[in-house]
């Protein structure tokens, strides 16, 4: 298509957003590899060094890495709030986040105190830079919508998570005497429910209707869900700290209904898709919502069932369903829309001499994405089984998971390679 004389958005080079999306699957691969080499001992408890390391490889290296890049991409589109100096911001966030995550994970896995301590300034730097840049853009925009509000709350939750993480590291290093168990629960809740959960909810308001061709979320949901959830998280945290026995009531009446409502609303929107053809992203999201429902359901039951909450597999199931089943599925599905779109947009503005610009559906072929979807689903199912019977299932689960992450990395990388071939 000839775009006579039209200059497109002066977007930063493709490598600016894509470095995040190329690195993220590698961190997930490392987590799967760590599980493969640690074997059943990794799943002995939620406190096993290998599991703590794998969790941070996933939450920082995969989830936070790709959510930060998504947010930086969405701000200009949603809010008309362009991020100043995108190249510099990408360097200042991506390098310390990658290095800090690697150091933290090695520190946790090997009990290497220096590595863990060295990771802290790097991670703090990456978080602070990102939060300041995003908050500045969000503060300047005149656009008002539920997604922007959710992004503000998610940023707040990220700051709280980071502060709690720093405090925990200080406790582990012997520099602070505070109840570490409670703080770990708060750190995990603010990271997983606040930063990851609230941000996915806010982003879903945009990407589900936009990319999955569904009707919009009802205003009665978008207007209150993220703020309600954030406030409930605050109340829950205060209750956990000072009146732990009552925390389950907040979970029951405040947090779980919000999550279940969001999952059901999303699934019901997906049933109203305007296009009937099966779509990989929609299938990833369906898996994500089913995992969210399962995680919320198990969590609810455990509040009243001492047998379940004491079971060794219970915390593992919660983590696996939330991190691998919910967050990773949703992000993975989103990558299959965002990456081809970015490649397409940059090809448009380069107007390559050779040949026509491929359609977004040709940039990552459905066949390749579907293969990875199946591997991801199988890995999730096997991980859940391995939590109950670590030996020998953990090896199978980790091996399939390695394949899934490697396929994802390959799919994103081949989109980038296609861009270079056509733009050259």
């Amino acid at each position: 298509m000839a775009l006579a004389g039209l200059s497109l958005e002066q977007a930063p080079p493709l490598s600016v957003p894509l470095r995040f999306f190329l690195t993220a699957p590698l961190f997930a691969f490392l987590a799967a590899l760590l599980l493969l080499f640690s074997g059943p001992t990794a799943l002995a408890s939620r406190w096993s060094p290998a599991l703590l390391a794998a969790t941070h490889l996933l939450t920082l290296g995969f989830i936070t890495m790709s959510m930060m890049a998504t947010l930086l991409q969405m701000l200009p589109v949603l809010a008309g709030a362009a991020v100043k100096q995108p190249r510099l911001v990408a360097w200042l966030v991506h390098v310390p986040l990658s290095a800090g995550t690697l150091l933290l994970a090695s520190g946790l896995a090997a009990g290497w105190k220096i590595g863990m301590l060295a990771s802290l300034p790097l991670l703090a730097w990456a978080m602070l830079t990102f939060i300041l840049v995003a908050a500045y853009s969000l503060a300047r925009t005149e656009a008002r919508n539920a997604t922007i509000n959710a992004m503000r709350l998610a940023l707040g939750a990220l700051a709280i998570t980071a502060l709690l993480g720093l405090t925990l590291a200080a406790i582990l290093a012997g520099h602070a005497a505070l109840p570490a168990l409670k703080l770990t629960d708060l750190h995990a809740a603010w990271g997983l429910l606040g930063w990851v959960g609230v941000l996915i909810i806010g982003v879903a308001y945009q990407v589900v209707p936009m990319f999955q061709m569904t009707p919009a979320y009802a205003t009665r949901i978008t207007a209150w869900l993220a703020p309600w959830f954030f406030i409930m998280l605050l109340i829950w945290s205060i209750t956990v700290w000072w009146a732990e026995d009552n925390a389950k009531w907040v979970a029951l009446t405040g947090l779980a209904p919000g999550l279940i409502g969001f999952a059901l609303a999303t699934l019901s929107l997906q049933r109203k898709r305007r296009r009937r053809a099966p779509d990989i992203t929609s299938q990833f999201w369906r898996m994500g919502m089913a995992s969210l429902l399962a995680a919320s359901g198990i969590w609810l039951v455990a509040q009243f069932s001492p047998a379940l909450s004491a079971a060794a597999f219970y915390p593992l199931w919660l983590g696996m369903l939330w991190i691998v089943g919910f967050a990773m599925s949703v992000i993975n599905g989103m990558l299959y829309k965002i990456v081809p779109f970015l490649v397409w947009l940059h090809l448009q503005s380069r107007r390559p001499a050779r040949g026509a610009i491929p359609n977004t559906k040709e940039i990552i072929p459905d066949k390749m994405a579907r293969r990875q979807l199946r591997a991801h689903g199988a890995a999730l199912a096997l991980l859940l089984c391995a939590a109950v019977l670590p030996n020998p299932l953990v090896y199978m689960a980790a091996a399939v998971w390695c394949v899934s992450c490697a396929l994802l990395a390959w799919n994103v990388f081949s989109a980038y390679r296609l861009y270079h071939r056509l733009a050259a």
Partner: protein
Amino acid sequence: MTPAEILLDARDLEPPEPLELTLAALDELQPDQRLRLLLPREPYPLYGILDRNGYQHETERHPDGYFAILIWR
């Protein structure tokens, strides 16, 4: 005789089709013509493209939730 206004209803299309069709329609747009673009959301990135390429534009928000963007030279 060319019509004074061209209508492009991109409300039911998956990105990046709306942008693709809009850019194609702008290529064809005659100096005395206007393009009316219907979208489910406000296209902030498009405004940048229009401003840089010397197009005028005006956005109306419709009560049933969609946006109409009027574009001319």
